[in-house]
């Protein structure tokens, strides 16, 4: 059985700046990281590999420099890594993205039966949480979102039981495979790559699939296939604070001052 982990390279959002003129992200000099939720998706795939001997494929759609992200997945133990990269895929919204990813998974399924697709619950750049469900819909897989624990898997009966983390409650769901599962951070603690794995992965090859391999209608992918577009992006204005006391030399006085200020603006409930 093949387990697919979808991972995305995202800009390190703590360091993102927005160009006030063009309203787009300033991409220059911004480091990229693996979408944090996706590291948990990959980890769960690797745990199933350790437990059941499933093979794990990591896939990502993105520009050529996203190869580093996939190489890291190989260093962690993924058996294969596929970068879906084509100029035609650029500028995609969640619909067009899920089309490309679904097609890649379908293609993988031809070689080896795909049992589970893991995705992070959302990305930290787009924050839509739509791509995972989009993949499930397009492939007709069971859709299990916000999973924080895999309770049981029966590979023979093709059954899975998971716990979903919902607001104020948990929900335990049993479903049949193949399934698309989006994961939350609580699911696991991602592993740290060993040095031998890192060294080997630096030589391992990341497969590159363009639209030549996927053969999708160019009108349905990338910017052309995206019904949504970003009209404006901006960071909210933040009121500048003020320094009200000297906590170093007068901690008691400063604390009193702070409490008075908070009370004065009715920000503290007593």
């Amino acid at each position, binding site marked *: 059985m093949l387990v697919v982990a979808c991972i995305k390279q995202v800009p390190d959002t703590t360091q993102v700046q927005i160009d006030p003129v063009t309203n787009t992200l300033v991409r220059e000099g911004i480091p990229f990281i693996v979408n944090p939720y996706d590291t948990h998706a990959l980890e769960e795939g690797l745990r199933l590999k350790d437990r059941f001997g499933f093979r794990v494929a990591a896939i990502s759609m993105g520009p050529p420099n996203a190869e580093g992200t996939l190489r890291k997945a190989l260093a962690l133990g993924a058996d294969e890594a596929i970068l879906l990269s084509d100029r035609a895929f650029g500028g995609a919204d969640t619909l067009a993205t899920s089309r490309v990813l679904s097609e890649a998974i379908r293609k993988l399924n031809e070689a080896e039966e795909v049992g589970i697709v893991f995705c992070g619950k959302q990305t930290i750049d787009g924050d839509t949480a739509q791509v995972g469900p989009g993949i499930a819909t397009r492939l007709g897989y069971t859709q299990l979102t916000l999973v924080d624990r895999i309770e049981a898997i029966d590979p023979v009966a093709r059954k899975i039981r998971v716990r979903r983390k919902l607001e104020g409650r948990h929900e335990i769901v049993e479903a049949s495979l193949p399934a698309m599962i989006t994961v939350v951070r609580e699911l696991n603690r991602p592993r*740290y790559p060993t*040095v031998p794995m*890192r060294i080997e992965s630096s030589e391992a090859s990341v497969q590159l699939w363009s639209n030549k391999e996927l053969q999708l209608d160019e009108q349905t992918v990338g910017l052309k296939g995206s019904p949504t577009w970003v009209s404006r992006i901006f960071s909210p204005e933040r009121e500048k604070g003020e320094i009200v006391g000297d906590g170093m030399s007068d901690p008691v006085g400063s604390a009193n001052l702070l409490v008075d200020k908070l009370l004065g603006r009715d920000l503290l409930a007593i």
Partner: protein
Amino acid sequence: MSPNPMLFGALLLVSLLLFSVGCYRRLSLVTLGQPDQRLDNPALRLGRMLVHVFGQKQVIRKRFGWNHAVIFWSFIILMLANLEFMASGIIPGFTLSFLPAALHHALLFAFDLASLLALAAVLVAFSRRLFFPHSSMSSNYVKARSVEGFLILSLIALLMVAYFGLHGATIAAGTEQGAAAMPVSGLVAALISASWSGSLASLALFFWWLHAAALLAFLCLLPASKHMHILTGIPNIFLASAEKPNHQPREEFVKGGRYGASTVQQFSWKDLLDGFSCTECGRCQDACPAAATGKALNPRQVIHAIKTNLLSNAPSLQIGEPGVMPLIGQEGEGTTTEESIWACTTCGSCMSVCPVLIEHMPKIVKMRRYLVQMKSSFPEELFPLFENMEGRSNPWGIAPTERTKWHGPMEVKAFEAGKTEYLFYVGCAGAFDSRQKQATVAFATILDAAGVSWGTLGKDEKCCGDSLRRLGNEFVFERMADENARLLKERGVTKVVTQCPHCFSTLKNDYRQYGMELEVIHHSELLARLLEQGRLKLNREVGDLGKLLFHDSCYLGRHNDVYSAPRKALELATGKAPGEFSRSGRESFCCGAGGGRMWQEEHQGERINLNRVKEALEQKADTICVSCPYCMTMIEDGLKDLQAGGTRVRELAEVVAEGLRKVSSAVC
């Protein structure tokens, strides 16, 4: 007295054979270790050997060590006496009397006195073991080996008793040449004359054989006991690392490589020799902050485990098979637990007190390297640290763009080669930690006030990687060190001043392995210099700090021998020498944050920082002066935990900068 030369010769031969085989069997195991170059800087090595071996430098730091020094020097003197004795066993009647009479008599007197002193010292040692057992004698696996200690002491005592018996009898019989030079034996002779009515010749013969038996038994037992140190200790001191602090060797990252140490033969030969040099004196255990606060780590046990593991696995290792006993695993005599490996703060106090200069810390780091790099097995708290260091080059994962936020309204210039003298390497804590940022500003203000030409790398500065290296994440450290070396070279940096002793030590010592020969000084050194040279003129004497104690940082003091500079700076700024902790200088007690412990929880025993803070509070300190951001955090936290609001922590630069305030403002 006519000992049987044939019988003695045969016994001597057998003993020498057993001794040689015993030594060979043990010492040949050392060759299972990895190569390590230990012959550089011979002058330093020779000098150190003289001081530590013949001067017994570390031994006599402990009061009880004087007893050892007496035994040691007696042994050196008596070595000649015993050679004479063995020769007399083979050539009956042989003595040193062929020497000029004056020299011969002087030697006889020395032998007599040394034997008495040795006997007295052995009796003191005996009673100490029996009646005043030291705390370090009660740790795991030590009790059983205590028997060995008694056995050896008994043998030495027996040797001395036999010596006096033999010479007393011969003096009484009137057959001893130079009897006048042997006052103690003379007394024994008088005692014998008064109480022994039998044949004096047979009494002498009895003591002769008793002496022979004790001597030969000692020879046979030596290689198998911890007293092997009398053979290995001296070369071990000569071969100890010439680097300070004891460097970790670089690792070569290649395909198929194995990293760190999970088996004894992955240690260097010197690491293995250390095992055979350990006398189990317990000084390291007493000095260790982890052991003192009830952690799993006991540095002595780490060394003993390596030796036990080597001996136990030797039969398999020598035929190229893996050993059965794990080096890292469940608690056992030849095994070190992961928990104890992670408990080390790399403070170096174990190494600084070891009489035979055993290097504990590099061994612990080698095992960490294995755990991190081969097994990815480490305390959970380190996961974000490793990710943050690799991703954002600082421990907290704060955006690198915020590295210059400490500037505030200050004008901070970028370092420019040729124009700027010092690169001020701010360090992660100096740039990001809100408390340490105050010290950064204080130091920068001082630099400006003294007219020092300085600049920073601004947002381009990266973490030095200290924590990663001590935690065994050498792979990522190497990337960071390479990147930093490239950056510093590219910018033409030659002189660096740091406020963090960890940056200081890493840039100064570790980066030499990366081709960086920088002149690195700690801000305490620069502050002392500026004040001494009068380049920094203070407006007032800082006198309102109450009782001030200076806390030595491990990476400034023990690892780099910078003790006097911060004290000098404090003295010049405050008008009086700072107060001292009861454990200070090279005996300073760690704050608990070194070696990557800063980023881990303390789950076991008392918190190390509390131990240190309690010491300060017992001494009624009003101000604790630190010179390290880790110490700052740990000691401030400790004071908060103990609700000791009356005591404050000041960074050295903050104290000095206080003196820059106008006199008038000091009043209000």
